[in-house]
């Protein structure tokens, strides 16, 4: 076994009881029968992939959706069993599952824990029932507290809670109220996103009363301040972990894998992968996915948008993905990987944004490596900065 090759697995569960009004992820409700075929197909994809990536050791698994807690938990646990059987698992493998407070009853959580899931991500979004209703969420705050309690009872000692800011009708007070209540629970991890209205979602066509930009920024800054005061550090644009800045115990390994361009394999409908600088994604039509997987001659048809990244493409990604992390990108690593210094490629951009106070260069003490990161101000406008790292 080659211990050098690490892999993260993403498992997509595209089912939801009902789609939220702001959601533009690949999810839908489906008949039991279709769900059954889906899990069977997924299991087959896992088996086949295990053979292909037998030299890799799996460092993290993430069940996302959709709502992974919506389908029968037996199916989910079987899927995880299949993964363990097909792949080489690291002893410390981080295995996360997303759960909706409305569907995660105690028995389910218990079963997940027993199956080997060791990290739970609860989509609370808000603890204000009015706000939840406006989002089209199927749960209320009471159900969330219950779920959280049950999760602890079931033995989950690494829990993430998702909260959202800039919601329709949300005020700074109501948002901070949610944040305070979440912190009181002392989850190990908090994801704080601001709502982005995506084209194609019902929200896009609705006349919403959204907080203005100033309020939105205030919410963001208050989150950071308040979480810091309460022992959480920000390690990625939207993610906070319990512990001091240098304590990565509760940082989500899987999430970071995307930003540092580790190998990851997405299995299931529409899932995205990147292995050894090749990116692709699975197709998004569930009937095609099932049909293609059923026939040995058409397995390859489930993949689309295969892209062999050029050196420029890799440099771009290294920068714009890496900058999502608060610690930024390792410029020494850049040079090792690409045989050119970041200054050679990006002198103008780096100079410009350092000058404007949006980027910051520093030497990381432990490694002695030079890093480039977004400043506090830069994090707010990260897209603008990142876009400039694209090469013509």
């Amino acid at each position: 076994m080659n211990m050098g090759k690490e892999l993260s697995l993403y498992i997509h569960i595209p089912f939801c009881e009902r789609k939220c009004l702001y959601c533009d992820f690949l999810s839908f409700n489906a008949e039991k029968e279709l769900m059954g075929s889906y899990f069977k197909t997924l299991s087959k994809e896992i088996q086949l992939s295990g053979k292909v990536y037998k030299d890799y050791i799996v460092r993290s698994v993430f069940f996302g959706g959709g709502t992974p807690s919506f389908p029968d938990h037996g199916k989910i646990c079987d899927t995880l069993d299949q993964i363990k059987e097909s792949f080489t698992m690291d002893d410390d493998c981080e295995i996360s599952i997303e759960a909706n407070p409305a569907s995660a009853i105690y028995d389910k959580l218990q079963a997940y824990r027993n199956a080997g899931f060791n990290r739970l991500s609860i989509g609370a979004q808000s603890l204000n029932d009015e706000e939840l209703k406006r989002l089209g969420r199927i749960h209320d705050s009471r159900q969330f507290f219950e779920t959280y309690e049950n999760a602890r009872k079931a033995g989950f000692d690494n829990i993430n809670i998702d909260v959202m800011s800039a919601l329709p009708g949300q005020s700074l007070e109501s948002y901070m109220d949610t944040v305070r209540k979440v912190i009181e629970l002392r989850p190990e991890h908090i994801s704080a996103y601001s709502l982005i209205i995506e084209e194609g979602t019902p929200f896009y066509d609705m006349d919403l009363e959204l907080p203005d930009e100033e309020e939105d920024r205030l919410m963001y800054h208050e989150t950071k301040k308040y979480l810091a005061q309460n022992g959480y550090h920000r390690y990625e644009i939207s993610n906070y972990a319990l512990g001091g800045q240098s304590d990565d115990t509760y940082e989500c390994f899987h999430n970071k894998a995307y930003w540092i361009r580790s190998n990851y394999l997405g299995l299931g409908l529409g899932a995205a992968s990147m292995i050894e600088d090749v990116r692709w994604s699975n197709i998004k039509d569930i009937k095609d996915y099932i049909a293609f997987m059923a026939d040995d001659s058409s397995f390859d048809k489930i993949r689309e948008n295969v892209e062999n990244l050029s050196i420029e493409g890799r440099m771009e990604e290294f920068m714009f993905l890496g900058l999502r992390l608060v610690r930024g990108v390792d410029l020494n690593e850049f040079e090792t990987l690409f045989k050119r210094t970041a200054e050679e490629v990006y002198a103008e951009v780096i100079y410009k944004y350092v000058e404007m106070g949006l980027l910051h260069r520093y030497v990381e003490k432990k490694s002695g490596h030079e890093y480039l990161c977004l400043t506090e101000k830069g994090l707010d406008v990260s897209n603008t900065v990142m876009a400039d790292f694209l090469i013509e």
Partner: protein
Amino acid sequence: MDQSKIRNFCIVAHIDHGKSTLADRMIEKTGVLTSREMQNQVLDNMDIERERGITIKSQAVRMIYKAKDGEEYTFNMIDTPGHVDFGYEVSRSLAACDGAILVVDATQGVEAQTLANVYMALDHDLDVFPVINKIDLPSAQPQEVKDEIEDVIGLEAQDAPLISAKNGIGIEDVLEAVVHKIPAPTGDSDKPLTALIFDSIYDSYRGVIVFVRVRDGVIKKNMKVKFMATGAEADVVEVGYFGPGRFIASDELSAGDVGYFTASIKNIQDTRVGDTVTDSARPCAEALPGYKKVMPMVYCGLYPADSAHYSDLRDALEKLQLNDASLFYEPETSQALGFGFRAGFLGLLHLEVIQERLEREYDLNLVTTAPGVVYKVHKTDGTVFDLTNPSNLPDPSEIEYMEEPVVNGEIMVTTDYVGAIMQLCQERRGKYISTDYIEQTRAILKYELPLNEIIYDFFDALKSRSRGYASFDYELKGYERSELVKLDILINREEVDALSFIVHKDGAYERGRKMCEKLKDEIPRHLFEIPIQAAVGGKIIARETVKAYRKDVLAKCYGGDISRKKKLLEKQKEGKKKMRQIGNVEVPQAAFLSVLKLDSAD
């Protein structure tokens, strides 16, 4: 060919009175084309052009008509633009004709441009006969319109064909009238060649294609011809007629004919519209009068959006000028926009047409600066110069006074809107001259208006304030002294030369305020706050601020789906490319254009 069987004519009309539809019907009826071919020609013109690799502007078409007298006639119909901006183009087309059909809308009657076009045709000694179009519409008043034509224009109209070009009614009458009312050409084929260039186009395969009307003599293949104005000589490669949508080669063109020729023309500047072509071996004594030389009235800067395309823009302008002699241009440099050209146009519509042709036919992406008129600057040292670029305005201490061009404007409008239109003219610094009632319900308002007040959006304003009932025509009267100032725009405290323009001092504040407001809407928010200021003589008279944006982050990047994120960033980057960098501010190209249409914003 027997000259007595040739008719060279054009159709003049007010815009939308049905000129092109009538032309199409006539082509159809003369049987040169079947209805099906007609369809193809009309619809697939672009494809035909592409397929053959040649560009055919349908300025002229030859038709064969078998008249009721049993004789076969050759009709050469030459297209004329209908818009007031193109008076010059109309003029050059008219010079190639012997007569004109005047189309008048039975529901609208005589309009300002109808008059202008008829007078122009009469100036060229053309025989004009009217036809009344759209007689099938319920609101048609053919008799009233006939009377009006006689009263207002003084053309015999009682026997004017009553037609519906759209529905093909009365087309035969028009064709017969062409035979009987338009005179045959009267040239002499034995005399030395004298041919008028009324248009020319550039084709990448054949080079310059010259459109001529032969007055006297004959032009044929292999003959050496001379362009009288430029003195250039060339060997004729091909001569022919204008088929519908294509060129039909023939042996020769003789006196009275309209057609084209190609020749070994080396420099496209050698062929000038309005010039006379003659036989090198046996030149004619003197050139044809050509056309009334028209001066550009409106100037603006034309810049390639991507400065790397400067030479492409130059080549394109060179080629466009071939068939648009009224287009003037010279290189200029802007601090904001880099290398480009200062170009002169007959009017704003002309500018827009050229801009569109440059963008569509030559695939160029352009930035246009605010158009302005030509001012006369009288300096304290006694010298006078023409100012076409506001940036060249000398220091106020060196200026004695300035003059601006003024036009005589005629607005034809229904009496209901006289008040509204008078108010508009007042707002545009118009000097009232007179009101003439041509019938009970219609009046001609005469105003003297500064040209720079009408080049931007006067037409739009006129239309909207009269619900489309007003029509307008103007001619340059001359220059008058005026209190003018240069309005400067500063973006992030940096003066943008491309946005400067000359304005009457009383209108400076209003204009400056509107410019700032408009630019505020057009300039995207940046990472920093951007003041937009309007200044006159260094004094700030208006200000707006584009606030800095505080937030530009991505939502959840889910399941490692990087492609969406990357697309978004690419879009952002792409958007930036369409911007002009002014200092450290990215200004979209649209911003330069939008400030031209200030009034439509409120």
